[in-house]
């Protein structure tokens, strides 16, 4: 329980620091734009809401980082990555393949990219779920059918230029 609480506090502290860093980056971007920052008469101007939000978000994130860090220091327990990296390997791979998918479409077309994507992922997930050869083959077949179905519905029936 203590370990979980400490790990969670540390995660929140890191999140707070990341948000503060993001706020500082965006603040700098906004402040360096003379057009956005100029006076607009009675209109508070295009910089108004970003400035208010950056201020509130920055202060809130700073508060989150500080209070969470204090909580982490006050609580005892070991903090480790555990199976964290291994657990997120598949989600990370999915994000990477989504970006590859987008890059691949102009080269080999949407349908071919979609078929490779769904067949590959269906096989991978089925294998990880402990399916045998037949189960994997069925998953790949199902994935290919689903991909072709989605392509047909959107491209032919709805007229999306895929």
């Amino acid at each position, binding site marked *: 329980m203590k370990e979980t609480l400490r790990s969670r506090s540390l995660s929140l502290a890191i999140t707070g620091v990341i948000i503060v860093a993001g706020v500082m980056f965006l603040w700098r971007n*906004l402040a360096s734009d003379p057009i956005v920052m100029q006076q607009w008469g009675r209109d508070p101007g295009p910089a108004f809401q970003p400035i208010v939000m950056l201020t509130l978000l920055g202060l809130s994130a700073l508060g989150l980082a500080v209070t969470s860090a204090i909580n982490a220091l006050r609580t005892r327990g070991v903090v480790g990555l555990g199976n964290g990296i291994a657990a997120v390997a598949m989600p990370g791979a999915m994000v990477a393949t989504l970006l590859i998918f987008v890059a691949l479409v102009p080269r080999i077309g949407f349908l071919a990219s979609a078929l490779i994507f769904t067949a590959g*992922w269906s096989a991978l997930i089925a294998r990880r779920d402990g399916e045998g050869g037949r189960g994997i083959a069925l998953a790949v077949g199902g994935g290919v059918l689903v991909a072709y179905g989605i392509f047909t519905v959107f491209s032919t029936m709805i007229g999306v230029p895929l």
Partner: protein
Amino acid sequence: MLDAALAAFLQIATDPFAIGLCLIGVVIGTALGALPGISSTMSLAVLLPFSFGMSLEHAMVFLLAVFTASVYGGSVSAILINIPGTPGAIVTQMDGYPMGRKGRAGEALTYALLASTLGGLLGWCLLVVFAPLVARAALAFQSPEYAAITVFGLAMLAYASPGSTFLALIAGMIGLLLATVGLDTTTDVARFTFGTDGLQAGLGIIPAAVGIFGVAEVLKGLERGAQKLQPVTRIGRLLPPWREAAPLWPLGLRGSIIGAFVGAIPAAGSAIAVTVAYALEKRLSKTPDKFGTGCPEGVVAPESANNAGVGGALIPMITLGIPGDSMTAVLIGALLIHGLRPGPTMFAQHIDFVGIVYVALAFAIVATLVVGMLGNRLFARIVNAPRAVLLSGVTLLCVVGSFAVRNSFFDVIVMTGFGVLGYLMNRIGMPTAPVIFGLVLGPILEENVRRSMIIYNDWTVFLTRPISLTVLIIAVVALAYPLIQDAVRQRPSP
């Protein structure tokens, strides 16, 4: 209003395509809602692109059918595999799943369906009666009141979000900040575009919603050690005994009233309504110990409240342009794509559309009952759909759905980015819905604050107008109370 509703009824009832869309929407909505790991918001978000090629009327018929049916569908997975398909079904599983384990899954599904229909109809009545009144009152609102109501919506969302209010507030601020990306609509000045053309038009609500509600859930499902399911295999008979079912209608009525009114509070969501309904029935019961062991009362109360919230959530959406829950936030995105911005002028300028919403929702509720009665055994099998095909297929649907908004792969990258954001937020226990609310409400807030300043040239205008002041005080109280509670609760023990 009556003329518009009658015209809408005749328009939909005599249009086979509209009826077909309603039925297809109900079947797909229930099926997706029944699938583990696919929430009703995700169902609506990924099916939204199917409506792009339709007229506004057909799109609403289809989307409201998906909306209504997926809320019911959430109870199927709650009863059969102990995983709520929607936040509103989180309480249903407490008695639905034990009923299923006792061999009464079919009866539990029927109880959920009948309670959903009762709740849906009562929520519909509330929508029909109160939406015109709220819209009429809202016509007197000026920009300061709108700005205050937008703040109120965000405060309520933070208040009602599961977990920490402070984290929900930060998530809402992230959404409000992201809403400022792109060209400012008043001055045409670019903000946070970093010289890219893709960001000039801003971050689309639909790619963002598909990413946060769709891709993030897929990524979660891909994690190692994802929950192993223990589905109920024996459905049993569908019709419950009359003697047991008949005395439950007052209970369903109470749940419906709670659900409809709580659902009408901007951003309050169904989770609160079902919890209140369940707790109330447990308190009123002569045998409270039965709750949690598989009693029908524990299914009827939350399910009636859950579906009553559909009609309730549409009230702030239609009358104020503020989402009632995460699903109506997605619906607002759909309306914007069809060139319609919901708000108080809807009743004056688009009364035909309001009529369509009324009639389409009523058709959807009835169709859900019919399709549910006929297909519950089939939907019960859907929970066993192969996960591999499901996850890869849903991801592809997310890609196509995001692309189809503007035929741009830049939106697919935006969707992926929001997917990663949603996934990381889920991992640290930060609610994701406030980001989408922030994206929807951000432009409304900015527009009305700036307009107030241009017109009144006085920062105190928000505090000197009675309605605006009252709404802001409620918002501050709604925020302050749980924040203080959070602070007290988070004090670590030595």
